[in-house]
């Protein structure tokens, strides 16, 4: 016997496990001739003695009586409810595992559908001209005061209430820009822009109208896009000919960037 072979059975030898008599004799004979394997066997036997002593010291250890009492209480409560006394057989388990896999597969398909369906719907939806998806309120001009004095009739409380009435908040989502297209101002890909200030009475924000980004002039016409709120250096105002407060030159300014479906910036408006 070689040392390598001895190493594979030294555990069983030291633990007095049942083994072939010839193997046992040859391994013991090897241990008598090889000092290294003899030492290895001695270590293993000493360990076995130690482990048996540990096992013996713990052989009377058991769970306290209170555990049994608690379990019996649970069992009695359980026994009041009818329990089906059936031990499941292997085929049932196989069926259950198939069912589990089927449920998992169905869940995975649903998740995939959930991820891909919006994109698919977006690509198959008929595109409408001059529609912009916006996350923000529409940049239309909203006059704060619509009151016009009518001297013929004395003012009533209801009419006075119209003065400075805030415009109700507009819903987010698709907004038709065609109806709000200004008559003046520069045009970019079918959308008109003006430099007039936009006042949104429902929110305390003042914004310029969308300013075309000139480098986008060669781009295809914008059919739909997305408005994204960003912060830009205040010096960007100067690029569009807007006045800058130099005392706050280091502070960024909020801006809404109009992105086309191709991801390119088409226009920008500054928000205060």
């Amino acid at each position, binding site marked *: 016997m070689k040392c390598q072979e001895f190493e594979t059975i030294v555990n069983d030898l030291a633990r007095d496990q049942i083994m072939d008599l010839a193997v046992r004799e040859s391994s013991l004979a090897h241990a008598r001739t090889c000092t290294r394997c003899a030492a290895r066997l001695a270590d293993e036997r000493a360990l076995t003695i130690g482990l048996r002593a540990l096992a013996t010291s713990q052989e009377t250890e058991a769970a306290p009586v209170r555990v049994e009492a608690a*379990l019996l209480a649970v069992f009695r409560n359980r026994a009041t409810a009818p329990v089906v006394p059936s031990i499941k057989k292997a085929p049932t388990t196989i069926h259950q595992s198939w069912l589990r896999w089927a449920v998992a597969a169905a869940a995975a398909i649903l998740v995939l559908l959930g991820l891909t369906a919006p994109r698919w719907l977006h690509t198959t939806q008929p595109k409408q001209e001059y529609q912009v998806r916006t996350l923000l309120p529409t940049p239309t001009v909203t006059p704060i005061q619509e009151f016009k004095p009518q001297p013929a009739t004395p003012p009533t409380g209801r009419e006075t209430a119209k003065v400075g009435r805030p415009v109700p908040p507009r819903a987010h989502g698709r907004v038709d820009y065609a109806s709000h297209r200004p008559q003046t101002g520069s045009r970019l890909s079918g959308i008109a822009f003006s430099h007039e200030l936009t006042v949104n009475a429902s929110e305390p924000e003042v914004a310029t109208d969308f300013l075309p980004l000139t480098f986008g002039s060669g781009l295809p016409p914008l059919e739909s896009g997305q408005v994204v709120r960003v912060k830009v250096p205040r010096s960007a105002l100067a690029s569009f000919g807007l006045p800058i407060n130099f005392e706050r030159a280091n502070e960024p300014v909020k801006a809404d960037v109009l992105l086309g479906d191709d991801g390119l910036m088409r226009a920008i408006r500054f928000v205060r």
Partner: protein
Amino acid sequence: MTLLTTPSDEELLRLMMAGDEAAFTTLYRRRQGGIYRFALRMSGSEAVAEDVTQEVFMALVREGSQFDSARGSLVAYLYGIARNQILRRLERDRFFVPINDVADQGEVPGPEKFVAPGDPLGDLTRDEMVGAVRQAVLSLPAHYREVVALCDLQEMSYVEAAAALGCAVGTVRSRLHRARALLVEKLRANGKADSSSNQATSARCFV
């Protein structure tokens, strides 16, 4: 002539699930000791061992019908539940430092501790050895500790241990081989540390 036979674990489980309290008690008393000691040897904590034992049999009461006799014995099923519970606790408690209340705060000894046994020196040596082996076992990684606990301390066969751990017999053999080699190394290192500390003490005495 009546032939008295001991009901098998599976038979007791069937009776237990039918509401037979005596069957449950018999099954519990037959198996709780092994489960408790396995949990104790894996965790080194009596409180954990008690909790795990209770959880194992609670699971049996609640979900005993889930047991599938085609997949293994009831003992292996119980040890499997115990193992999962222990590993979960070990994982949960790994960030906590245990307070050894027996060693640090002093265990209240029973009357038998004050009675001088027949061979005090021999008992002391044996206790030291058992303590060293216990510490060495507890310091093993969990997947080595469990095979030592099952095969060497619970004296399970490789097949039974493999069924309880849900792995192949060869895996049990190889893990046990590696675990025992680690134990030998740890105990040898312990012995060297002890002998060096004794030498240091002697040197101080002579000076």
